[in-house]
Structures are given as C-alpha cells and as structure tokens.
C-alpha cells in the first residue's frame, strides 16, 4: 500500500490509516485524521524530513514517520 513517502511533490492524497499506533495518536492530534486530504509540500535534501500540507497548515516530519501514514488516491 502507498504511504506518504511515495507522493510526488505537490501531489494530493487522502489519509487512509496508520501503521504505528503511538505515532498515529500524535499525528491525529496534529490534524492528520483518516479521510483528510494532504499534499506533499517540501522535501529536505539527502533523505531529510518532509513537509506535508494538512488542515490548512504545513507539518514537517521525518521520512520514517511519514511512511507510517497510509494513503489512497
């Protein structure tokens, strides 16, 4: 299944679920809820963090964290 790290820059997708429970709660608090539309906004060089647009703001997270967010579309 695709996750957020598979997105291309500025590509949009809808959050489907999470692979990590503890992390998912933190992400949901920040507005990353299942069914929410997100888009990939920025990527730091050399495998650094990425930033996604979610709920009207930008959220940065590491790639390992981003890979726990499953997407569809």
């Amino acid at each position, binding site marked *: 299944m695709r996750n957020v790290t598979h997105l291309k820059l500025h590509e949009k997708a809808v959050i489907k679920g999470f692979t990590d*429970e*503890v*992390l*998912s*709660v*933190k*992400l*949901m*608090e*920040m*507005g990353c*809820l299942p069914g929410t539309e997100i888009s990939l*906004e*920025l990527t*730091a*060089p*050399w*495998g*650094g*963090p990425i*930033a996604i647009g979610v*709920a*009207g*703001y*930008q*959220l*940065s*997270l*590491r790639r390992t*964290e981003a890979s726990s967010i499953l997407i569809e579309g």
Partner: protein
Amino acid sequence: MAAKKDLKIALVGNPNSGKTTLFNLLTGLKQKTGNFPGVTVDKKSGMLKLPDGRIAELTDLPGTYSIYPKTLDEQIVQEVLLDQDHPQHPDVIIVVADASNLKRNLLLFTQIRDLNIPCVLVLNMMDLAERRKLKFDLRSLAIDLGVKIVPTNSRSGVGIETLKNVLVQELKTPKKPFYPVKDLAEQTIEEIKSVFNLNEDYRAYQYAQQNVRLSFLTEAQREEIEEIKRNNGFYDVPTQSQEVLGRYALISEIVDRNIKTEQANELSLTQRIDKIVTHKVFGYAIFAAILLLIFQAIFAWAEWPMALIETSMADLSTWVKEALPAGVINDLITDGIIAGLAGVVVFIPQIALLFGFISLLEESGYMSRAVFLMDRIMRSFGLNGKSVVPLVSGMACAIPAIMATRNIESWKDRLITIFVTPFMSCSARLPVYTLLIALVVPQKDVLGFINLQGLVLTSLYLLGLLAAILSAWVMKFILKSRERSYFIMELPGYKLPKWKNVGLTIYEKSTTFVFEAGKVIVAISIILWVLASYGPGERFNNAEEFVLRELPESATEEEFENALSAYKLEHSYAGRFGKLIEPAIKPLGYDWKIGIALITSFAAREVFVGTISTIYSIGADEEDELTIKEKLAKEINPRTGEKMYTPALGFSLMVFYAFAMQCMSTLAVVYRETKGWKWPFIQTIYMSAVAYLAALATYNIFS
C-alpha cells in the same frame, strides 16, 4: 508579588497562535519570569488590570497542541490544569486559537472545556483568516461550542478591550461536557472520581491516562490508579486514539457548519519563500549567511557597548575604592564583588544581540525551516534538528543555550545536546583567545589576504564545533534509550516579527543570564578574592619585609606595590594551590602562575585575564591588553632561560580553554536541567580530560 491579585488567569493555546503576542499586549511590561514551583520550566506571568478595577495575575503557559504533553514545557500545562491545588491553577482560562486554522486549534480547547474551568475562547489572527476568505458565524459557533468567543488580532490590538470586558463578566461553565468521554471508560472514570473526589469525568479520565506523569500524585496514588485501570481493562493509547477521533468528528461538524470558505488556494507567499529557503543549495547558503551575520554581530557590533561597560565598571570600582575607607571591606567590595559583577554584565551586549537574532528568526518563522533543513545532518551525529538553536546560542553563552533544549521531545537527543553545547566557543572565551593570539600569533597575512590572527581565532571556534559534534556522535552509541525520537513539527507561515516581542525576549534572556550566571560568578569571585588575599604562614603575613629585602634600593613606590601584590598572591592560598597543581600541568607547558589562573578560571573563563595581570603584578590602572601583552612577552621561563610564552604554550592554553569545562554557572544549569549531579559531574570529567589531552598534544606538536 507586591500587588494583590484577585483572579488567576491562564493563557493556553497552540504554538504559533499568537498567544505570547496577546500576553505581551495584555500585560505590557508588567511581567516577570520565574519558575513554576518544583520544576524548571520558566513561568511567565504579568499583572492585568481589569475594567472593574480588579487585578488579575495572567500566566502565559507554554504552547501546546493538546493536553497530552510531548515535551517538558508542555507537561506544565497539564499539571497546572489538572491539579486543582496547584498554586497556579487558574480561575479563568483564555484559550487562544488561530482563527485561520481552527479545527486543529479547537482540539485543545475542547479538552480544556471539559475540565470545567471557566474559559473564554479567543479567535486570534482574524486578519489572516479574512485574507484566506473564511467567513465566520461567531454567534452560532459560540452556541455550538458553549463558550464566549472574542475575535482578536493581536498584531494590531483589535479586540483586546472586548476581551478585558468579557473577563469581568461571570463566565458560566457548561453543564454538559463537549465530548462524552464517559462512553470510553465508564467504570474507570467512576472509580477514580470517587477515590479522588473529583467532579469532572474528563479530569478523572486524564488521571487514568496520565497517572505516571502527574507529579502531584503520590507513588501510592499512581499505583492505585494503575490498579483501577488494570481491573477495568483501560488501555492508554487506544482510548486516547478514540478520544482524539471523537473530538475531531464533533469539531469538524461544528466548524464546517459555522465557517464558510471560498476556495482560493493559490500559491501562498509562504510557499514561495519556502521554495528558496529550503532549497538544497540556496537553503544551506542562506542558513550559513545568517550564521555569519550573527557571528559578525557578536564580534564587531558588541564591541563598543562592551568597552563602555568595562570602563564604567572600572570607574565605579575606582570611585568606591576612594569613597570608602581603605581596608578589608573596601577590597572585598571592589576586588571581590564589583570585579565579579563586571565579569557578568560585560557579556550582556553579546547575549542581547544573539537572542535578538534568534528571536527574530523564531518570530518570522524562519527558525523552524533551519531546523527542518538541519535535522538530517544533526541526526547522523546523534543530535536533532532542534539542537540547532541551542548550539547557535552556545556561541554567546551556554546557560540560556542549555535552557533552550527544553523543546526537544526526546530525552536522549536533549541530553546529548546539553552535554555538548558547552564545547561551543562562548563569549567568555573570547578575551582569553584575544590575549593569547595577540601574544603568540604574528600580525601578518597568509596567502596575501587572510589575516593569520583571524584565521587562528576562526579555527578555535571550529575546533569547539568539531568537539561538540564528535562528542555527540560518540554519545549516540553509548547512551541507550528505548524512547523514540520524534520530529513532528509545525512549519508556521512567515510573518513580520513584532519588535515588542523581540525586545521582551532580549530582556528576558539577558536577565536570566545575569541572575543565573551572576549569582554563581559573584559568589565564586568572592571566594577567589579570599583565597587570593589571604595566605598561611610568615611569608604571606610579613610580605612587606620580604619584598623590601628583594627589591633594589632605587625601586619606586609603585614598583614596590606591584611587587608586593605579586608576592602576596604567590604566597596566598590561591598561590599554594597553583604550586600544588604545578606537577600536573607541567607537561602542558604551564607553571604555577598559569595554574592559579586555571583555578580561578573555573568560576568563569574570562577571569583568566584579570588573574594573569595580578600575578605578573601589572598595576590595576594599567590593566589593558597592551600592557599585559608586553609584560607576558618579556616573561622568561626560569627552566629554559627562553621566552615563557612561546607559541607552543600559547596554543596549548588556547586549546585548553576551548575544551575545558570552566564555568560553574553552566554546571549549575546542567544540574537543574538534568535533575542531578550525575551529568554535570561526567561532563566536567570528560571535558577536562579532552582539554588536558588536547593541550598536551598541542604543546608537544608545537615545541
């Protein structure tokens, strides 16, 4: 606190919601920074006069996204709100929410509302919301959320008076909770409510969720809660997950009903700036340029105010010396206390400048981009993107820098950052470097355009950075931690900094430095003064006679005085210590005189220059760099008959000062931040060992 307070109000809200700007607007300059009882988190509070004449104490709680804390700073929010006996437990809460990003901001609001503390919801940044073409039905929103709403714009001050008027009115707490948390764990909640005599379901539920974290509960109480949870099959994370989903479902419905948005999402200014600022080439170039600018400011711009402070403190000392009758008290005040104070206040310009820059970068939103860019590099050395701020701050002073590590979520990352930050060359090392470089490095250019002295100075700064990074890398393997490191961080939109906020941050950081470093440095200065002014035995007590015997007949009064103070220092307790450690420092090329300076430098590095000038009996009135330099240049090593201050000795000393842990105030802060003597102790041993070995190697390479 002098003024009587009739009401305790707490400001709560998401980071970047304009909460601190609102706090500054409400309290003006009538604020103070203190500590929350028992913990190390800074408490910012201020007085607010309400329209009905009552005085309220307003506390700015750290920004947080939810009542579940992720960092040490956030934990205080939860403690203050959940513990009804906490001295800061508010009578009224102002929840500040970013109107342009309401759904996420309302999560925290609904959690606080369910604790049943009277509250007001401030919708801040209304201008931004309007620019995003959001249309609010505030009356209906207020009814749906069950709270009074005040729209504000904390940048222009619109809505502040309305807010004050609302605070005067009686705020009713809603009868029904916003989110029926009881459905999640009815039995657990009921039992905790009856055991702890609580009224609110959500408070009881939070006791269950957070029992191990809440410091106001006793060990037995935590155990009791654990027992209740076990009996009822309460699992923290899945329940929390359900709660967050449930709250968001309700919030979404309300927000969608009351806020209309016209789809107008063109490429915003923030996105356009980000394209450049986080670019893989320009991004790093911009960050490097900003660092260079800060560097330049600390060196060049801070120079004249520092000189001004130095002269005024010297004048003050001379004035007191003449105004008071001569004697021990006089010496204690001038040579002990004023000298100690001078050593503290002289660094204010550098610290103020550095924190002015850092505050500007944070206010504008740039700092989180720097953190974003640097995380990958920092992580490979066991640090965190968020370590950037402490490390940069460490170039001015390690004390506020170490305090700035509090927003690093992971304990391991934070500990490593605290551990390595003192390696960054702080402003107190600068006077030592300057003196020694002037002494042993010739003033000439290499390759035609690079100033050799400047090159050596830059290398010393890089050496500190290198030591910090390598030590962090080593610690990454030594420290074991089961805790995970997270990097979930909001990138706020860019905005123009508010000068008032920058000014207040500068003021706050400078006062923190003056008090934290000040009390230790002044205390140590007094101790050192005693050690250097008193000594055992006949040689110290009858110093005049001995000096008279040694000096030629033709010596002037001044020469006698200088020789006398040098002689006294040699035979004082400090001098004895210097001689005692001489064998240990001999391999580094040092003698007992430098030994005294090393001992006194333990209070604060810059004391080196003052001690050296006393030892070489340079009169107080000619204590400027040039005379010290000339005097040291002429100093002969009795063992070799050559110059004492050879390049080898100079470099060895510089390297020693670059690495050694010579700052009591830093140790005190590390003690406070790590809650124990273990880490300050390890840090001292480690840094001293690195300093010793590096100085030893340097001395042998150059001689």
